[in-house]
């Protein structure tokens, strides 16, 4: 699925940088009913992980109270050039990944 990742392309070593992610997902709560009274089954992203050159730097457990198309913004210290890897997992075997590179000088 489509994901929007916002990571600065360049940073100075030791800078605190903001990482913003947005992924497209319905985040169906499992509490809604159709007009004829049937329950719409839950379908949400339950977990998000961000790894920086293989090390986990941020993890989130998500619940139905997170809005559709989950947006997450968090911070990290720019230590070295490399790659951020993002992973979303959820109900019904949902899994999606994205990555972004950074140059640290």
């Amino acid at each position, binding site marked *: 699925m489509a994901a929007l990742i916002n990571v600065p392309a360049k940073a100075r070593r030791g800078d*605190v940088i903001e990482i913003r992610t947005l992924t497209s997902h319905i985040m169906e709560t499992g*509490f809604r*009913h159709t007009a004829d009274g049937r329950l719409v089954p839950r379908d949400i992203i339950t977990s998000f992980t961000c790894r920086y050159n293989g*090390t986990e730097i941020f993890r*989130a457990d998500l*619940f139905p*109270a997170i*809005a559709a198309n989950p*947006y997450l913004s968090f911070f990290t210290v720019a230590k070295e050039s490399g790659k951020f890897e993002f992973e979303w997992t959820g109900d019904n075997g949902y899994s999606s990944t994205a990555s972004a590179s950074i140059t640290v000088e």
Partner: protein
Amino acid sequence: MPTTRRQFLSLAGGITAAGTIPIVTLRPLEATPAMLNAAIRNVVGEAQIRTGRVKLDIPPLVENGNTVPMTVSVASPMTPDDYVKSIHVFNEKNPQPNIGNFHLGPSSGRAQVSTRIRLADTQKVVAIARLSDDTFWQVAADVVVTLAACTEELN
């Protein structure tokens, strides 16, 4: 997104057409302050929760509970021996008391997380931070919601 007259009328029409049964069936789904406390105790255990250090930025009045921007930040130096381990956000009246758990570390640099949440009713939102010395700090904010999320009808 502002609610247009057309959207409002179609929503009002939908509620009238569906009758009162869904409203009756939805009531027991609402989390109670007791569930909120249970969810908090689940994370915190028996530890004492102090008020302060945590800042919860959330609009006091929202038109649409389906997407409410929220930022939690914690006053912490974020050094290897004094940092924020995790941030937990709870609500009082959604069908489930949990909103999200966010796990940070000393390499986070700044203890701040933003996301967008759903609120099913006018209610209290609670943010709790767990620090590296295993103390817990909390803050609560009241949010007035005019259009609820989570439990509305699908048309």
